[in-house]
């Protein structure tokens, strides 16, 4: 190769390394107003969290990345997982689910991926004046059914009504507590090069189902949300592979955002293989039309797990043996190269950086 090319490559690498440093430096909140991007689960959300919320709260229990907070109990050695989430999805009902079911499942899943056995839930409602009672009844029945099916009862709740126009029909907040298993230690910090990345099934169903349910998009499809309670699946995996490094529930921002969080936290690189990703042809098609990456779409019933290489096959067969994991797949591996970055190896043999979601292609998906 000519010296000129080498020179240009070196210059290019130097620029890219500056960009990379800028990219990984601490998030700065430049905005003077809250915009929808701050709620999208991507970079703007992270900036809001890191630059405003966490520093204001100064809590020793908050780390900003974990799906649930871990609360030590004064008695004995057991610890509690504690999580909360608000649900503002629009429309309230969509193929495969509704705002109530989503609230129950989402809250249980945050506990499940933290390695906790969910014990109880709270449900708080914010209702807009004029909401019809039948709609509310349907949502409440759905909450009851989902909680009972999961075996996690609702222990407390609250109802508020705001004047017309001050909310959009109804919002739901749900919190959950769970007892942390003593035999596992889940944390992105445990992830090591060589570890294997698994996903428990089809990617992108929930976000696409909600999106297609919106009237603006007149695409015919059979795509339904994957909303499901994952505590059974997570427990099965932890029973089979107690050395599981970390589990994630790839909701807002999708699989790409969750993997980036892990890569950044653990200071490792993650390489994902495009041809191994379980993505339904319908989702692929809809993504092509809408210009969205399926890896940026929210899931509400999928587990991402990173396990040591020697446990990979056992983890895969355990997931596949469970009704919620029949389409589970090994999708990638952890590396020492490109720390903090997720790389997608494309089906045709190329490679590209898989970044977190920027901006918000789909507001109010959960």
């Amino acid at each position: 190769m000519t010296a000129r090319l080498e020179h240009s490559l070196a210059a290019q690498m130097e620029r890219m390394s500056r960009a990379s440093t800028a990219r990984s430096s601490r998030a700065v909140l430049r905005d003077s107003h809250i915009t929808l991007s701050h709620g999208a689960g991507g970079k703007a959300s992270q900036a809001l969290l890191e630059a405003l919320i966490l520093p204001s709260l100064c809590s020793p229990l908050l780390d900003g990345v974990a799906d649930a907070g871990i609360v030590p109990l004064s008695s004995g050695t057991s610890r509690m997982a504690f999580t909360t989430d608000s649900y503002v999805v629009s429309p309230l009902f969509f193929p495969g689910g509704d705002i109530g079911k989503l609230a129950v499942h989402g809250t249980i899943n945050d506990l499940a991926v933290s390695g906790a056995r969910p014990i109880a839930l709270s449900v708080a409602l914010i209702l807009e004046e004029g909401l019809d009672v039948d709609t509310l009844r349907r949502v409440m029945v759905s909450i009851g059914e989902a909680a009972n099916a999961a075996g996690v009862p609702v222990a407390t709740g609250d109802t508020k009504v705001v004047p017309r126009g001050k909310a959009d029909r109804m919002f739901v907040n749900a919190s959950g507590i769970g007892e942390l298993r003593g035999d596992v230690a889940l944390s992105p910090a445990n992830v090591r090069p060589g570890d294997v990345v698994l996903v428990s099934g089809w990617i992108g169903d929930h976000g696409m189902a909600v999106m297609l349910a919106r009237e603006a998009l007149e695409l015919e499809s059979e795509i339904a949300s994957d909303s499901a309670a994952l505590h059974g699946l997570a427990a099965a995996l932890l029973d089979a592979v107690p050395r599981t490094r970390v589990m994630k529930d790839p909701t807002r921002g999708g699989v790409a955002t969750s993997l980036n969080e892990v890569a950044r936290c653990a200071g490792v690189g993650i390489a994902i293989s495009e041809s191994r990703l379980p993505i339904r042809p319908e989702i692929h098609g809809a993504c092509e039309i809408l210009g969205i990456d399926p890896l940026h779409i929210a899931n509400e019933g999928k587990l991402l797990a990173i396990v040591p290489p020697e446990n990979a096959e056992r983890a895969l067969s355990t997931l596949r043996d469970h009704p919620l994991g029949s389409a589970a797949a090994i999708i990638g591996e952890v590396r020492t190269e490109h720390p903090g970055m997720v790389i997608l190896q494309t089906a045709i043999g190329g490679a590209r950086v898989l970044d977190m979601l920027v901006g918000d292609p789909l507001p109010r998906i959960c």
Partner: protein
Amino acid sequence: MRYVDEFREPESVRRLATEIERLAEGRRYKVMEVCGGHTHAIYKHGIQDLLPSGVELVHGPGCPVCVIPMGRIDDAMAIARTPSLIFTTFGDMMRVPSSNGTLIDAKADGADVRFVYSPLDALKLARDNPDREVVFFAVGFETTAPSTAATVLRARDEGLRNFSIFNNHVTIIPAIKAILDSPGMQLDGFIGPGHVSTIIGLGPFDFIPARYGKPVVVAGFEPADILQSIVMILRQLNDGSAAVENQYARVVRAGGNPKALELLATTMELRPYFEWRGLGFISQSALRLRPEFSNFDAEVRFAVPGLRVTDPKACQCGEVLKGVIKPWQCRVFGTACTPEVPIGSCMVSPEGACAAYYNYGRYSLMREQERAGGASVVMPGAGGTPDEVLV
């Protein structure tokens, strides 16, 4: 998606890549992909990883979001801030900076800005909100202009009085000509825009081989399409010939889409000149509504500042759009200008060269380094640890 997967089949892709390597042996070629859709596909699939170092792809001006000058975004913001007006736009345009914030900021400030997937969604909003003005921010090349035209005709037929468009449609041919005429141009051939060509056909590209002696191959958007079009261009170059060829014949007809062209001719006319971001004023390069449709023209119905706003000094979008510099060579690339906080429009749209390069390009660089035979390069990592080696 079977129809798409066929063109992503690794085996045929590999065959084409081998053929390109053979054709480019001992030579250096610079090929411009004019269309932003191609730029996006090239990065998305990692196509540059498959090309020999002698074949360089240069990203052209065909990203409709990227070429809109800042002054037009200022105008859009002014319209969007009109009390009780609903301003509708494609999602990408919401993040393009004006001289004072973006449409996302205007929305957070109280403007009713909504993103839509088609001008017909905007028309539906107008129908559903008869007491409010609804404006559609029309952007794009000949690909999207016909659907805007059809929407305006439908609005007229339905007798809607509260619907108008802010027309920023541009035409690709004058931009290609501007690039061919720019000093220091070093391109050997063009991958022609597949979607635009479905509308305008092949004829408008004839001047490129005829007057400038450069081959043009109109291409589809799958990896095999793009690679095959490069094969076709290199064959022409090696043969010393120059012609317009159609790789995307399964979609593009030589005569284009006469019905769409007729819709355009009925509703729109060429502006005498229009400013392109970074390329400056190009004559007869954009469309506006004909006077008989002025009721649907937001520029006529609302007060817009209509001022020319100079791009931020640090921004080098123009040079990127002309292919003079690579995205990474821009002064602010990846540091002051990122997809989250863009300075230039090339960093906004996923079709923009800078955003594509920022999101997808960094890894292929390391491979290029490998191919160049260089040792692995030490890059300071996030925590400033200098021993993290990228290979």
